[in-house]
Structure formats: structure tokens, C-alpha cells
């Protein structure tokens, strides 16, 4: 993988991740979202947020398992798309369900745990999006940046709980997201455990391009 190939891979991710948004917009304008298009938009952007959070969290395990160090370069795009769909989801809720009645939204957050979890998840994503630029990585320093970006773990957990609490009876899809998240976070716990044991025997070697990875 040379620099040009990596740039191209980023472009592939950038365009592919926009496909759901493009189709959703097309379906909306062609009135093909069913009887309740606003609910459909809210629901779909929510699912997409969780999907992109999972994809973002999948980069590190896959990179290490398949020894593809360059894939870390795709992570920022995936993470920013999670934030993009999360923002769309939040706006859909505030607009279609509340018509931007701030007081009603605040009441909702205080009264309904599933809204509170959703808001928490989104709020945790904001600093990650803000500090996603190269300049910010430099300003914070790799170590602190890494620590900050561990916020994606509680953000994803809050997102899955938010979805689980919302459904009426059929919890299969939220539980699937929960299972995937468990594997992705479990991998990290396992790695940490392995590293802390291994470090006593072997000096830790740093791979190229390993900095700024959580």
C-alpha cells in the first residue's frame, strides 16, 4: 500500500459511507419511505449511527488480526460518518418529534431514560469529532488524544442501550448490536490483559503508524 493507494482507499470509504444517506434522501423525495417517512428517517439514521460506530470500533481488531496497519487511516472517516448520522438522527428527533421546542426536549431527556442515553451517546461523540483533525492530534499529543478518544466506548454503549430501551418487544436487532459491541470491546480487554502479561517478558515493539491508535 503506497500513499496513493491509501488515499484511494479513503475515497472508497468516503463515498460508500455516503451511499445510505443518498438513497435515504432519494427515497424521501420520491415518497418511497412508506406511510410514516419522518419516523423512517429518524429510525434509519439511528441504525446508521450505531452501524458506523461499530465499523469504527472494528478497525483496530481487524487491523491487528490481519496485520493491515494502513487501515487505521480509514478510521477517522468512519468515525466522522458515525457523528454525521448521529447528528442527522438528533436533528430528526428534535425537528419531527419536537419541532425544536427546547423545553419539551429538556423535559424528555430528564423524564425518559432512553432519550437520556441517546443524548449522552451523542454528547460523548462531539469532542471526538472536534478533535479529529491532524492539527488537533498534534496539539493534544498522541497519548492524550488516545485517552480522549476512548470516549467512543461509552458512546457506543450508550447508543446500544438507547436503542434497546426504545423497542417494544422485539429486541433482536438491539441485542445483535450489543453482541457485536461486546466482541469489539472484549477484544480490547483481552489485548490489554495479554499485553500487560507479555510486556514483562518482551520489550514492546512499536509498529510503524502505530501512534494515535486506541
Amino acid at each position, binding site marked *: 500500500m503506497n500513499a496513493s493507494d491509501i488515499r484511494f482507499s479513503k475515497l472508497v470509504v468516503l*463515498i460508500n459511507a455516503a*451511499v445510505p444517506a443518498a*438513497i435515504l434522501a432519494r427515497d424521501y423525495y420520491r415518497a418511497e419511505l*412508506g406511510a410514516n417517512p419522518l419516523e423512517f428517517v429518524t429510525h434509519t439514521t439511528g441504525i446508521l449511527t450505531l452501524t458506523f460506530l461499530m465499523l469504527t470500533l472494528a478497525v483496530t481488531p481487524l487491523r491487528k488480526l490481519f496485520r493491515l496497519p494502513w487501515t487505521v487511516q480509514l478510521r477517522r472517516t468512519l468515525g466522522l460518518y458515525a457523528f454525521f448520522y448521529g447528528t442527522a438522527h438528533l436533528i430528526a428527533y428534535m425537528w419531527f418529534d419536537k419541532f425544536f421546542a427546547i423545553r419539551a426536549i429538556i423535559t424528555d431527556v430528564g423524564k425518559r431514560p432512553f432519550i437520556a442515553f441517546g443524548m449522552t451517546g451523542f454528547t460523548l461523540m462531539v469532542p471526538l469529532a472536534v478533535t479529529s483533525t491532524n492539527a488537533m492530534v498534534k496539539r493534544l499529543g498522541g497519548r492524550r488524544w488516545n485517552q480522549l478518544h476512548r470516549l467512543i466506548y461509552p458512546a457506543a454503549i450508550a447508543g446500544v442501550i438507547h436503542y434497546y430501551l426504545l423497542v417494544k*418487544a422485539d429486541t433482536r436487532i438491539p441485542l445483535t448490536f450489543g453482541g457485536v459491541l461486546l466482541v469489539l470491546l472484549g477484544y480490547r480487554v483481552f489485548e490489554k490483559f495479554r499485553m500487560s502479561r507479555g510486556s514483562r517478558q518482551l520489550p514492546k515493539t512499536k509498529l510503524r503508524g502505530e501512534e494515535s491508535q486506541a
Partner: protein
Amino acid sequence: MVIKKPDDIKSSEITDERLYLNRRNFIRAGVLAGTTVTTGLLYRKLSPNRVGQPTSQSVVSGSYVTTEGETATDFKDITNYNNFYEFSTSKQGVAPAAQGFVTKPWTVEVTGRVQRPRTFDLDDLLKLASLEDRIYRHRCVEAWSMVIPWLGFPLERVLREVEPLASAKFVKFTTLLDPKRFPNQDADVLPWPYVEGLRLDEALHPLTILAAGLYGKTLPPQNGAPIRLVVPWKYGFKSIKSIVRIELSSEQPTSTWTEVASNEYGFYSNVNPAVDHPRWSQATERRIGEFGLRKTILFNGYGDQVAQLYSGMDLKANY
């Protein structure tokens, strides 16, 4: 691997740089197009667009207007946006899953605390009364609503036929249990079969009907074919679909949703903007086909006719 010395390679063998770049661009264009199409197809598979099932029943819309001047919701929306977990837990997924649902033969057993228990053949049941147009507002507990032109007759006609005993205080309704015809009954999403209940006086109320059709046509399977209950002042889930059994009892039956989550779905489940669902507000609703929200009305706007059923009752405690 043999590394050729530079003088082994004739200059004519070296791929022209422009050609090399062209080929690479060609492959890249292919990768980009291929992945984009794959992503698009994957999205479409997971999130099918529902233009609305084309149906053989062509319907003239707009001719159904309520006394309040409300226009009936589109036939396409009424028949493609359904909560009917026996087919699918996706509201858009019910109509496609329900196609080909067999409703013949169909019997409805009416039993329990009655003088003359009887199992009706559907045709006999429908002969008890002539079908009337009943245009009702339909308010789902999920805070959306429709206006539906039902075709049905008062449930009271059936109950009188079997002569309730004095000890009969409640009516329990049961949906067909048949995983072969209701594919999602294999899934563990609700305790099957679906059960609902009414107080006898609610069941005898003239607004309470058994519906066998809508928009002047036979009831489509996704709307509860061949026969369903419609209680317009209660949340939609009380209006049980595809009924096979009606049992009169002295004890209050436990509805399926009450069994699943009694703090969220009570026995009465009267439409009430002042009593929120624990997870969302019931103060407003989205009328299907509209962008904005409407204010939800107590008893779904049928208070004039039904409020006396609950006089002196605490509607917050008896939600």
C-alpha cells in the same frame, strides 16, 4: 525471484507510464463503482423501500369523510403500515409477509359464561347483521394515527346471539395460533396467541364493532383478516386481529401487552393525552400523511359517547 538487470529489458517491454496509470485508474474506477453498488444493494436489502404493495383492489380515495370533516387515510398507507407481530415486527414488513394468508375456512368460537355457546362459520357470523361503513379515527399507542373507513357491524349483535349470563363481566378475545400461517409466531417476541379483553359494557357499546372490511372491500390480511375487533376510543393494540375465539368470563382477562409490560400497557388503554407511555408522550400524535403533530384528544375524540362508561373512575390509575 529473478531480478532482471536493466539491460535485459528492452525498452519496448517497459509498460508505458501513461498506460500503467491508465490501467490503475481503470481498476480504481471499477473498485469504486463496484463497492458503491454493493453498498447500495446491501442498504436496499436491509432497508427495502416500500412504494406500497400494488393491489388488485383499486380504490377511489377521498370519498370517505368523517362527520368531523376528516378525510380517510390513503388505502396504500392503511394497508402498508401495520403492527401485526404475527407476521413481522416491522410495520412496513407486515404487508409483504401477509400476502397469501389463507382465511378459508374460518370459524369463531363464542363461549364461556353464555346461555348458548356457539362456533360460527365466518359466513354465518357475517349474516348476523349487515355490514356498515364506520369511519373511525385509529390511534396507535406509538403516537401515530389514521382515519380508517371500516366495514363492520356491532359486536353486540354476536354477544346477544349467545345470551351472556348474569355472571359474565368481561370478554376475552384470542387471535389464531398457527405458526404455519403466521410465520413470526415462531419468534419469541410475544407470548402467543395474542389475547385482548374488554369489560362487557365496553364490548356491548355501539361504537365497538367487528370489522370484516375497509374501504368497501374485504379486509386485507395485514389489517386482521378475516375478522377483527375495532374499539376506536382505545389504543390500536386493543383492537385485536384475526379473531378465532371470544370468551365471556367473570374475571378480568390479561391482555398480551399487559402480560409483557404491565407498567406500560394497562387493561383499559383508553386514548388519553394526560397519561404518558413511560417511554414517550401521548399528548400529541402524527396523523399519517401529515408533517406536523396533532394534539391527542381524550378517548380519541369519542368522549361524548363513551366517557360515561368510566364515570367516577381514576383514568390515571386505570390506564
